[in-house]
């Protein structure tokens, strides 16, 4: 009995107690971890739940194809909110040279039908993020490339500035950086002597957001630009393209652009 009263007596219950304390400790740690991580996890969940682009903010995947649908009937003549937003987001400023020497990742084109001279349209034109991009085909070093999710980009590190891609682009969507740059956005590296173009604001997409131009168009009250995953049949852009007539610019070249237009 004495043995029962020895200080070691509780050791008889040791496994159970140890298990109890172990479980308790684990639970406490888990709880502490939950308390510590939950806000972040919750915020991420909320962000994705509220994001118009559920596939954004993840690794680029070939299951996704980012694209844009532009409703030219809603695009206002004289409005350049998309251009300003692009310039602000990507830190693009007019250069010191001639206007044709400044980068323009997105531009507004005003159209007048030649037949009647009355019908007027306005639309934004930028890199069309083709599925079969001629700029990627002609680039000698492979600096022009297409990301898995369909975004056509330029690798600043291996672009030699030959401008062959600019010759090959049917949309005149690329610009050449003609002079030294200052005050760049660290997320959008640009460089003198390299070619550049619209990236669909890839830095925003990777944060779960859409392109700045689309956001600006919506904020300006036009809602002419719709961004989304063309491969997701449930996405708004895929639904709209499936149900309303849209067209591709220079469809004759069969480049399968990721940017489509309504109302042309």
């Amino acid at each position, binding site marked *: 009995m004495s043995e029962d009263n020895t200080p070691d007596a509780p050791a008889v219950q040791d496994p159970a107690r140890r298990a109890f304390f172990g479980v308790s400790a684990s639970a406490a740690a888990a709880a502490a971890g939950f308390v510590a991580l939950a806000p972040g996890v919750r915020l991420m969940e909320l962000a994705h739940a509220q994001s118009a682009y559920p596939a954004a903010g993840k690794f680029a995947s070939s299951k996704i194809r980012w694209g844009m649908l532009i409703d030219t009937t809603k695009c206002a003549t004289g409005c350049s909110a998309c*251009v300003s937003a692009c310039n602000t987001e990507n830190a693009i400023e007019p*250069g*010191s*040279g*001639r*206007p*044709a*020497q*400044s*980068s*323009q990742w997105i*531009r*507004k*084109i*005003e*159209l*007048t*039908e*030649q*037949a009647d001279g009355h019908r007027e*349209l306005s639309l934004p*034109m930028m890199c069309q993020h083709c599925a079969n991009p*001629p700029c*990627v*085909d*002609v*680039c*000698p*070093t*492979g600096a022009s490339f297409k990301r898995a999710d369909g975004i056509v980009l330029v690798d600043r590190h*291996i*672009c*030699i*500035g*030959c*401008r*062959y891609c*600019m*010759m*090959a*682009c*049917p*949309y*005149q969507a*690329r*610009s*050449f*950086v*003609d*002079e*030294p740059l200052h005050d760049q956005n660290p997320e959008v590296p640009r*460089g*003198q*002597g*390299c*070619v550049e173009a619209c990236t669909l604001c890839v830095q925003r997409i990777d944060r779960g957001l859409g392109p700045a131009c689309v956001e600006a168009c919506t904020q300006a009250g036009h809602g002419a630009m719709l961004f989304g995953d063309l491969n997701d049949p449930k996405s708004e852009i895929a639904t709209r393209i499936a149900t309303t007539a849209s067209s591709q*610019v*220079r469809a004759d*070249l069969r480049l399968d652009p990721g940017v489509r237009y309504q109302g*042309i």
Partner: protein
Amino acid sequence: MAATNIVYREIANKRATWALLALCGLFIVAGAGAHLTMEHYGHVITGMDNRIVWGLPHVFAVFLIVAASGALNVASTASVFGKSIYKPLAPLSALLALALLAGGLTVLMLDLGRPDRIIVAATTYNFKSVFAWNVFLYTGFFTIVGAYLWMMMERRMNAYAKHLGAAAFIWRLVLTTGTGSIFGFLVARQAYQSAVLAPTFIAFSLSYGTAIYLLVLAGACAIDDRPLGDAIVRRLKNLLATFVAASLYLVAVLHLTNLYFTRNHGIENFILMDGGIFTGLFWIGQVGIGSVLPLVLLLAPAKANLVRNRVLTASAAVVIGGFCQMYVTIIGGQAWPLNLFPGYKVSSSFFDGEVHNYAPSIWEIMLGLGGVALAIAIVFLALRLLRFLPERLDDATLDPSHAHAD
């Protein structure tokens, strides 16, 4: 047989030789200065922009590269087609080909936005790019023609020269096809997008290369007081006339095929009718000075003592016409706007729908002339240091049978 007793000799250590090299040196230094200035300030100081992305440097570079291939004509005629009269002239032909290619590529490389990344261009390839193919074609051309030259000049290797000559002949045809395809594959631009461009560029190369060869040969002989016989000039005259006529024919085919397609009437009207400087350069420069005038000079009957001057004048006219042709092809083709929305008048801050103007800057002119000077300097420095040219180039030396016949 004629070539067996021919003695080859360096051009003499004369003041004229060094004066020419010094002049070339000045242009090379000016070209290097232009390049450094462009690299420091950026292309903003040039006439090029986002609409005319390839400017005067490309006119010079492509002209020199195309001419390089054609400069090999004389060597090919000797080795591949077995015309022994050309054999003594073959080393100069190969040397000129290498020098022109070096000059052209130098201009092309120094006009890059990032010329410091040339090692990237040499080590990182996209094999679908016509440009990347051309990198291989250029390096292959240097290798094959270099080996061919060595085998022609090294007596022990003479027996193999014929085989290398054949390889060089095929390679240079492929090279010019590649250069023409740089433009021919640009389906987006109405001025290009034609399969006819590749054979047209081959014809241009034959014509420009032969013309430059004649001028360099005459220049080298004049600078060193070497006799140059009429027989070889007369033969090259007929060759040049054939190439000029072939070029003109293919240019006509190119424009007629474009005119067949209604969608191309705009660009054709621009180049042929109301393109301002481009129309002028096409009709007066490319067709008038570069084709019709040389054909008249080369084919019209002339007194024997006038033939040489006529051939050299025709050669100079072909070179001038060649520059005009490159200007019209490269700059004119870009000046015409892309047609994104058929049936609409368009306007934008990026000059959509507008014919674009281009005025080359002094830096581009200096860079281009620097490339030409580099090519000339390589040729004359090599002629001064090595035995590329026969001591005598008169009819009796080159073609004894001709001398006897006379």
